[in-house]
C-alpha cells in the first residue's frame, strides 16, 4: 500500500511538470510517465501477490521465546536512530567536536560498552582524531561551531 501511494503521488507530481518540447519529441515528463506506469503496475502486482498468497496463518506472527530480547534490540535501534537525528540537527550549530563526542559516547553505550572510562577515552580520542585528520589533513571544512569562542572565553 505504501508503494502504491508512492506511485500515485509520483504520478500526481508528474502531471504538474511543464510540457516543453519540439513536435514529435519526448519532453521532460516523458521518462517520469514511464516510471509512473512501471511503479503503478508493479505495486499493484505486489498487492495482488500479497492478497493471493495470504493464508489463515499469515496474519498472526508467532510468539518467540526470546521476544523480550528482540524488543530490547529494537529499542536499541530506535535510540540509535534518534541519537543520529539529534546529532545531525545540532552538528551545524554546536560544531563537529562538541556534537560528535556525546553522539559517539551514546553509540558506544548502545553497542554494549559499559566501562565509562573506555567510553570517555574512545569517544573523545576518536572524535578528535577524525577532526584533526579531515579538517587539517584533508581540508574538509568540518564545522567548528561554538568551541573556539567557548575556549576563548575560558582561556583568555
Amino acid at each position, binding site marked *: 500500500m*505504501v*508503494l502504491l501511494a*508512492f506511485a500515485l503521488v*509520483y504520478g500526481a*507530481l508528474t502531471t504538474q*511538470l*511543464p510540457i*516543453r*518540447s*519540439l513536435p*514529435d*519529441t*519526448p*519532453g*521532460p*515528463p*516523458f*521518462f*517520469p510517465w514511464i*516510471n509512473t506506469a*512501471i*511503479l503503478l503496475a*508493479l*505495486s499493484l*502486482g*505486489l498487492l495482488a*501477490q500479497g492478497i493471493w498468497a495470504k493464508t489463515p496463518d499469515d496474519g498472526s506472527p508467532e510468539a518467540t521465546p526470546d521476544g523480550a530480547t528482540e524488543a530490547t*534490540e*529494537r529499542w*536499541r*535501534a530506535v535510540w*540509535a*536512530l534518534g541519537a*543520529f*537525528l539529534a*546529532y*545531525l540537527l545540532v*552538528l*551545524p550549530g554546536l560544531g563537529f567536536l562538541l556534537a*560528535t563526542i556525546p*553522539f*559517539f559516547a551514546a*553509540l*558506544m553505550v*548502545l*553497542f*554494549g*560498552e559499559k566501562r565509562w572510562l*573506555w567510553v570517555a577515552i*574512545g*569517544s573523545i580520542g*576518536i*572524535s578528535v582524531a*577524525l577532526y584533526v585528520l*579531515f579538517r587539517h589533513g*584533508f*581540508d*574538509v*571544512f*568540518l564545522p567548528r561551531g561554538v568551541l573556539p569562542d567557548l575556549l576563548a572565553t575560558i582561556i583568555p
Partner: protein
Amino acid sequence: MSPDVLIGLTQATGLLVLLSTCIGVVIGLVVGMIPGMTISTGIIVLLPVTFVLPADISIALLLGLYIGGMTGGSFSAVLLNIPGTPSASATAIDGYPMAARGEAGRALGIAITASFIGGMTSFLFLFFVAPLLANVALEFRTEDMFAVLFFGITIICSFAAKSLVKGLLSGAIGLAIVTIGQDPVMGTQRFTFGQVNLMAGVHFLTAMIGLFAIPQLVSNLTDMTGGAKQIQTKLASVVPRLPDLKAIRLPVTIGSLTGSFLGILPGAGGPIAAFISYDYTRRASKKPETFGNGAVEGVAAPESANNAVTGGALIPMMTLGIPGDPVTAILIGALIVHGLAPGPLMFLERGDFAYGLIFSFFWANIFNFIIALAALRLLVKVLATPRALLMPTVAVLCVIGSFALRNNFFDVYVMLFFGLIGLGMRWLDMPVVPLLLALVLGGQLEENLRVALTSSQGDIAIFFTSPISLGFLFLSALSIAWSLRSAWQSKRATNLHKKELTP
C-alpha cells in the same frame, strides 16, 4: 604497444600510488574479515578521503580495498565460520572444518594463494579484453547505448533473489529518484519543490552511503552476538606446501576462469562465481566425498573465483560504464567525483588513466598476496576489535563522507533519509542493489532514450533497426525471461517442499 600503456604503468608505479595501494589492501583485509562490515561499507567509509586526493591515488586506494576485502572475507570464514563478505560464504564450507582440526594456517595460506592466482588471471582478462571492448563500444550510437544501459537495468532481475516484483520495484524507485533535479536534455526542473539543493539532483554517492551504512549499523545493533565466538588466532605456517599447491592446480584454474568470465557479466558477482566454481570443482574431483569436511580444493576454488571476479567486474565498468556489482557502482561514483566518466571514451580520452587503473589492479593483487601472507598473524587479531568502537566510527565517517562530497549539510540529511529508506526496504524485504543500479544508470538511460527518440522524431523503430541495439534488446529480453523462469522454479520448489512437510 600504445604509449598510454607505458604512461599508465609509470603512474601506477609511482611511490605515492603504490603506498596508497598498500594502505588500501591493508584496510581491505581488515574490513573484509570483520563480520558485519562489507567491502561496500568499507569503500563508503573511505570515500571522504578520496575526494581530496588525486584521482590516481584515490582509485589505487579503493582498488586495494576491493581486492584486500575479497581475501579478508575468507579469514573470518575459516576462523569463525562467519564469512566476512558474502563472496566468502563458499570458503567457509571447507575452510572452517580445516580450522576445526587445527589446520587454520594451512587453509588461510591456500585461500591467499588461490586469491592471488584468481586476481592475476582476471588482470590478464582486464588488460587484454577491456581495450578491445572499449574500441567496439566507441562505434555505439545513442540508440545502442540506450539498449546497453537497458540491458544493464535488466540485471536488476538477477538481484531480486526472493521476489522479482520487489526487485523490479526497488529499481523503479531508483529510476524515480533519478528524475529529481534538472532533466538531462532540456534542463527543466523536476520534483525539486523549490529547493535549490535539489536542483543538481540527489548525488548517488550520498544515497549509497545512507542505503548501505545505516541499515548495516542498525543490523549490527540488533544482532550483538557475532563477536562472541572464540577465535583461533594462533596459526601454524601459512605458506602453502608443495603437495597442497599440486592439489589446488585444477580448482584454481576452474575458479580463476569461472570468476573472470562471470565477473564480466554484470550482476553475477562474487558469491555466484564462488559457489559455481565450488560445484564444478567438486564434480571434477576424484574424491568428491571429502568436500564439506575440510578439502583444500574446496577452499581454493571459491577463493580464486571471488578474487577473479574483481578484474572481470571492472571490464563493463571501464568500457560501458555499467557497474557489475555494488562495489564497482561506488567506484564509478568515485571516478565521476574526479571528473572521469567511465565508458567507451575513457580509453580514448584518458587512456593513461585507464591503464593506470589496470596496473594499480595488478599491484593491488601483488601487495595483497605479500601482505596477507606476511602479516596474517597480526591481521587476525583485528577480529577481536570491539564493535563498540568500530560502529560509532563508521557512523561518524558516513556523516563526514556525505558532507565532504559538496561541503553541504543538506547532503548529510539526504544520507539519513536514504538510510531510513534502506531500513524500510529491509523491513519490506526488498533488495537495495536494484535501487543502487538504477541510480547509477538511470540518468544516462533517460538521456540516451530521449536523444535517440528526438533524432528519429519519436519513431521507436530506431531501436530495432540498429543491429547492436537489437542484439542488446534481445539479451535484455533473455535476461528477464531467465529471471522469470528462475523465480517460477524457485516458487515451485518451495510449494513442493511445503506439500512434503504437510502431513
